[in-house]
């Protein structure tokens, strides 16, 4: 075994189920939901279940084995908890570098800022807007995660009052941002048990910040902009000093600084996951908010645009937490959706089962439609039909998980398949008409469908949001 492989932790291929099994209680009690301990060990190696699902292992007599297993399964990037209670956020905990290797853990936490010089009403409004951000997306609710409280006043009392107000307004975890340790301490004292993330220890103030982190049991950011030697040194020093939870800030730079920014994040993550570098193996903080520094006369909308795309690039390039200032829906929505996309299971099929779906209580005159089995297409269409309470039949065609337009273009959604699906669905015995509504994006092949199926094709809207209106206006059996 080479040095690098030995050092590597959490690597999937190095771990065998036997190595796990050896340390399990071997009771085959099935409490974990698996048939036996060996099956559980296999699931553990594939990261499909958590170790804590094994209840006997948590008993005192197995403490040693539990600790051994924890060490064996330690992720390449340490997991750090910010905040307390239900809204506490885990960041980091990453096992792999590339998405195709294994589902990424702990989606990038997004924090929106307030400052101690904003009027109290604005602070409260911004906190509430952050807390209430909500977007329904294929069965998930996209949310924001944290509040960054910045000290712009350099006044300890003002900072303390602002932190107090924020902690009274929300249970979301906080990131306290102040470089003066005395100001920072005043801030923490307003929420001494809230376990905020402290920003930041630098080469200048590290000792005082370390004392605060230890005293209040709070995670601490080590900041060393565009200097990875300095960052590793600072992290090492803080660790030796006794700080348990450290987050790395390698610096985020807009515009031409983006090149160094992406390089630093990428190098740190590769060093952690591929070379077992424990100092690089700490969660990474990105600060797209830098786009607002020196903004001059630039329009706010352009800064929000820039901030959003920097944030999106850092979601892809390994940031575990982000601080933003812009809180408009239009600039945050693409970011929130991208984060959801990147953190999904790369192995999970995107398709739903093909076949006939029934909405409401259709009768022999009800409309028949078809769509593809691509999960996103199906859920979008289904939710539009459901929310309008339309009674209808929907034939889900096996398009190998393609959307309508790419399915037609890539010949995965063909007239052949649609004609077959109509037949297989049994809908011919359920309705007396022979008319099927096609998605507008499949209009190209409507003639072929008519030829092959014998059904008349009505070309429906290009977007399913217009289905209810289309049916009211146009449908006649």
């Amino acid at each position, binding site marked *: 075994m080479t040095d690098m492989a030995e050092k590597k932790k959490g690597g999937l291929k190095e771990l065998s189920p036997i190595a796990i099994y050896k340390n399990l209680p071997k009771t085959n009690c099935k409490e974990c939901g698996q048939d036996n301990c060996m099956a559980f060990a296999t699931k553990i190696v594939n990261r499909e279940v958590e170790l804590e699902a094994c209840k006997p292992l948590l008993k005192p007599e197995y403490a040693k084995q539990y600790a051994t297993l924890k060490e064996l399964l330690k992720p390449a990037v340490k997991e750090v908890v910010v905040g307390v209670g239900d809204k506490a956020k885990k960041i980091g905990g990453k096992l792999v570098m*590339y998405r195709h290797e294994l589902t990424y853990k702990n989606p990038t936490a997004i924090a929106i800022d307030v*400052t101690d010089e904003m009027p109290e009403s604005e602070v409260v409004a911004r906190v509430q807007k952050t807390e209430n951000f909500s977007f329904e997306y294929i069965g998930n609710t996209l949310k924001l995660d944290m509040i960054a409280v*910045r*000290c712009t006043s*350099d006044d300890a009392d003002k900072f303390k009052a602002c932190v107090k107000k924020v902690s009274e307004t929300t249970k979301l975890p906080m990131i306290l941002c102040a*470089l003066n340790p*005395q100001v920072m301490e005043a801030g923490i004292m307003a929420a001494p048990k809230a376990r905020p993330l402290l920003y930041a220890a630098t080469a*200048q*103030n*590290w000792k005082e910040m370390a004392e605060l982190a230890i005293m209040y049991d709070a995670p601490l950011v080590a900041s060393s*902009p*565009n200097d*990875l030697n300095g960052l590793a*040194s600072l*992290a090492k*020093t803080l660790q030796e*000093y006794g700080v348990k939870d450290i987050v790395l800030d390698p*610096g985020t*730079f807009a515009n031409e*600084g983006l*090149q*160094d*920014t*992406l*390089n630093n994040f990428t*190098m740190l993550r590769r060093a952690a996951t591929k*070379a077992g*570098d424990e100092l690089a193996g700490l969660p990474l903080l990105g*600060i797209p*908010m*830098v786009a607002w520094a*020196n*903004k*001059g*006369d*630039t*329009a706010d909308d352009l800064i929000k*645009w820039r901030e959003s795309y920097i944030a*999106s*690039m850092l979601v*892809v*390039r390994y940031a575990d937490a982000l601080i933003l*200032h812009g809180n408009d829906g*239009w*600039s945050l929505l*693409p970011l929130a959706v*991208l984060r959801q996309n*990147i953190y*999904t299971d790369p192995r999970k099929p*995107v398709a739903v089962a093909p076949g006939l779906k029934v909405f409401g209580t259709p009768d022999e005159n009800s409309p028949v439609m078809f769509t593809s089995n691509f999960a*996103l297409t199906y859920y979008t269409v289904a939710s539009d039909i459901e929310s309008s309470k339309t009674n209808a039949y929907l034939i889900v065609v096996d398009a190998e998980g*393609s*959307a309508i*337009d*790419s399915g*037609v273009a*890539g010949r995965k959604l063909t007239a052949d398949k649609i004609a077959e699906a109509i037949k297989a669905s049994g809908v011919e015995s359920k309705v007396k008409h022979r008319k099927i509504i096609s998605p507008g994006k499949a209009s*190209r092949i409507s*003639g072929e469908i008519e030829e092959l199926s014998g059904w008349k094709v009505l070309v429906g809207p290009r*977007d399913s949001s217009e289905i209810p209106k289309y049916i009211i206006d146009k449908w006649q059996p």
Partner: protein
Amino acid sequence: MNSTTHHTNDKKKDEGLQLSDDLLAALAKFKKIELEDFQLEAKELEILFEPGMAANVLPKLKLPGLAAVGGKPASLLSSPFLPPIEKYPNRIAEVKLGATKSEGGTRGKTITIGGELSPAFYTFENPTPHKPAVTLDVFDMEVPLSKAVKMHVKDVVGDPAAWAKLAVEKFGADMVTMHLISVDPLLKDATPKDACKTIEKVLQAVDVPLVIGGCGDPVKDTALFEEVCAQFPGERFLISSVTRDMDVEKCAKFIKKAGHAVLAFTPMDLNFARELNRHLFDHLKREDIIMDLTTAALGYGLDYAFTNMERARIGGLMGDLELAQPMSSGTTNAWAAREAWLKMSADWEPRELRGPLWEVTTALTLLTAGVDLFMMMHPAAVKTLKDVTNYLTANKKADPAKFLDWVKVKA
């Protein structure tokens, strides 16, 4: 003074991207933003040389009673970071598009993409040999376009030559994609000869390399591309696209004879991509092939497109020659996401910004996966993509001195 020169050069390079007044009139809200941004660049320059700004950020610290205790370090320890540099056995093929007069074509410039030695923008390891290029979509007949896009092109829809000119001169396109969808038997069923007349007009209107797009019907596209190859040899078009259900051998032969490059399109499956490349390799050189592995929109499968492309690129660098080709993305597909164009509740408006940002987010995600050629739509999205590719290849060290200013920004 190095930075001054640099800025000036960059501004020159970017001039093509500045949006002209008449377009700006149409851009409404965006107009102001664009102009102000350019004014800012000059201001930033001045700020850059103002001394002493950062000194105020860090307070002078003198806290009592914090001497080293119990083995705790009293001063900063040193722990150098070892940059994790890797070597790859292979490099991505380089493909040149367009041909000048001396090369047998009529183009004023050529575009070369690919040639990577590392994953996308791992410039700590290897430089990026060529900036990714942007080709703008032009259609030869009316097509459904979202409002945010349509407002910028409504005057030129139906006039491909004028549309191409707008794309190059106003929107900063490196290339133009001429989508000849009118040949679709299910649309206008125009003849390949008719379509070639459109190409001739576009060749006259702009001097950038062209992508020639078909209609998606395998039989008709074969006939179209054969005619294009017969009429325009030597132009070094990118023929878009050849798919597995076409007569690949036949297409490869006439493309080779005319000296064009080919876009190998496969629907999000690397095994299909390998198979198609293998067939093409029998007739064409690696320098003639670009892959399109299918682009899905943000929110509608972008994650699959991203991972597929990232795997293809890493595989190619690690020695999988069947995947070591430059990649193209139909980024315009971002507009297939309803969130890009739908009028939503006030919380998510204006869609005039949300839409192009949707395209930007889709493009930049795939930029980091390794895409070399972007087929795009919205002028603001194009501008941002070009800006970011310039930034990522500027080789200018980020200045840490003022970084911590963000904490105190009064935004």
